[in-house]
């Protein structure tokens, strides 16, 4: 039994079924990729895991415990941290304060000084600017680093990454894959939603593919690239006529 399991999770918005009957099993220390075309329900699934939404059906288990009914902050306390597709930061706080929020409130008690933790995490993600810059002055890439540092500062066991790579240059992508591996090596399990195949194929141990809210494939990167269904979902079927 893995660290995180979703069992038949279904989430609807009005008439639209965003996630349909999805079951996943993520093992400890895995980097688990979640891919699929735009609008396939990847982010909704992440939100259902992290407590932003409550799924209508199905359950989410973390370390064997049912976390489905918990609120976002409680889930964070259990050890699941996340980043957002559209970066969420606290614009009028300094970089350090932003990360400290994660360290103070997300972490389990009796840890070291939040400031130290925050600084450590900022260094860990190689944050390039002064720590007393305001978050509103950062560019998107720096914000993503900031958000990642904040998530890590919660001392999580599971990290949910939602499109961290969007807009990065190839050099930066390499750096990011290294970073993701380093995070994994520090003992954190990762689930990442990503469009950039290069990155996903490079770092993931296992990948699940969503299309129209349903899981259409799961396997190693190799298996996924060879899967006909996946190719069709991505490049589109050739015209039948």
């Amino acid at each position: 039994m893995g660290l995180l399991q979703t069992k038949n999770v279904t989430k609807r918005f009005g008439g639209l079924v965003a996630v349909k009957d999805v079951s996943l099993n993520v093992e400890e220390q895995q980097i688990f990729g979640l891919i699929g075309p735009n609008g396939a329900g990847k982010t909704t699934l992440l939100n259902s895991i992290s407590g932003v939404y409550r799924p209508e059906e199905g359950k989410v288990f973390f370390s064997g415990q049912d976390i489905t009914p918990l609120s976002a902050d409680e889930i964070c306390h259990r050890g699941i941290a996340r980043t957002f597709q559209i970066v969420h930061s606290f614009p009028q706080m300094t970089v350090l304060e932003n990360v400290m929020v994660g360290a103070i409130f997300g972490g389990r008690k009796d840890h070291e000084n939040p400031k130290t933790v925050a600084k450590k995490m900022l260094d860990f993600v190689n944050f390039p600017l002064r720590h007393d810059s305001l978050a509103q002055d950062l560019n998107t890439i720096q914000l993503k680093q900031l958000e990642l540092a904040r998530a890590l500062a919660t001392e999580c066991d599971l990290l949910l990454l939602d499109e961290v790579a969007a807009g990065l240059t190839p050099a930066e992508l390499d750096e990011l894959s290294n970073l993701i591996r380093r995070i994994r090596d520090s003992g954190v399990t990762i689930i990442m939603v990503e469009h950039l195949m290069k990155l996903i194929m490079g770092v993931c141990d296992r990948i699940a593919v969503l299309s129209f809210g349903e899981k259409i494939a799961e396997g190693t990167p190799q298996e996924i690239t060879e899967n006909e269904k996946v190719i069709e979902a991505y490049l589109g079927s050739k015209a039948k006529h």
Partner: protein
Amino acid sequence: MERKGLVYIRIAEFLKKIGMSPGGALMFVLLAVTPLLLQDEFWTRLLAISLMMGALAMSFDFTAGFININNFGLAAFWGLGGYTSAILAVKLGISPWIGIVVGALAAALLGFLVGILTLRLAGIFASCMTWFVALALMAVTTNWVELTEGSSGLSTPYLIDTVSNLPYFYLILILTIGIYIVLRLVTKSHIGIAFKAIGQDPQAAAASGINITKYKIFNMTLSCALAGLIGGFYAHYVGVLTPNVMHTKNTIEALAICYVGGRGSIWGSIISALILVPAMEFMKGMMELRLVLYGALLILVMLFYPAGLSGLCETFYKFISNKGLFGKMGLLKNVRGQGSSQSSK
């Protein structure tokens, strides 16, 4: 020379511990001696009222500037504190000193309830909820004549049996400093960070493990309790209480002071109260024109400097530090900032 510097730093450290800067402390000391120097009852009274409005604006800022809810019913909590204390004193003969504390507790209780009511709301909707509660409270106060004497007003006993304004001035000065220290300590602590996080991005706050419910309600409760405390002071200082104290225009006054002072700074509210309240007093001869100017000031602040006085000071400080001693740091930051966006190519 060395030692002198050391003493200064020690004092500064101590002040910092209680949430005050040397500048702020000096300001309070100056304020404390001003009435002694002036020996003028009117000035003492004016300063006392300015401090009171400043304290009220601070408790407004505590919600508006941090969890980003404009408590549009603040005057009602202020009035509730006053009325509770006054009614206890008039009907049951309880000492106003105790009454003020009870009044603060009553306001805190209502603040707690309003905190729960506004939990699912944000922005203007939360403001309207607090406003509606306040209007309802004002209507009850007006109509529950057996208890409150309705709009005829309630004659309240004085807190201190004296004809001088000086004791009241020092009382409100101590209250204001106390409130300032409490609010500064809270906002400088982890709790303050949680407030800011909730105000700036509730979703990220929740994802970082902040219990939004708990902090939002705590914020409302504390802010309302402080407003109630000041209300108690008001009731036993002025000597008569009518439901008009709960009128929205009083909230607007606190709100204007807070916004002109700059949201989220706490200290901006005191400074702007110390400027605005006396200024309004001296412009009294201008009749309506004074209020027109007041409105124009609000508009100008909102149009051209939404950050208010405190924002102005920050910019001023940054300007000085960029030009002067710390210029290099500032420059460095800019260069680095540009550098990294270049590198994304």
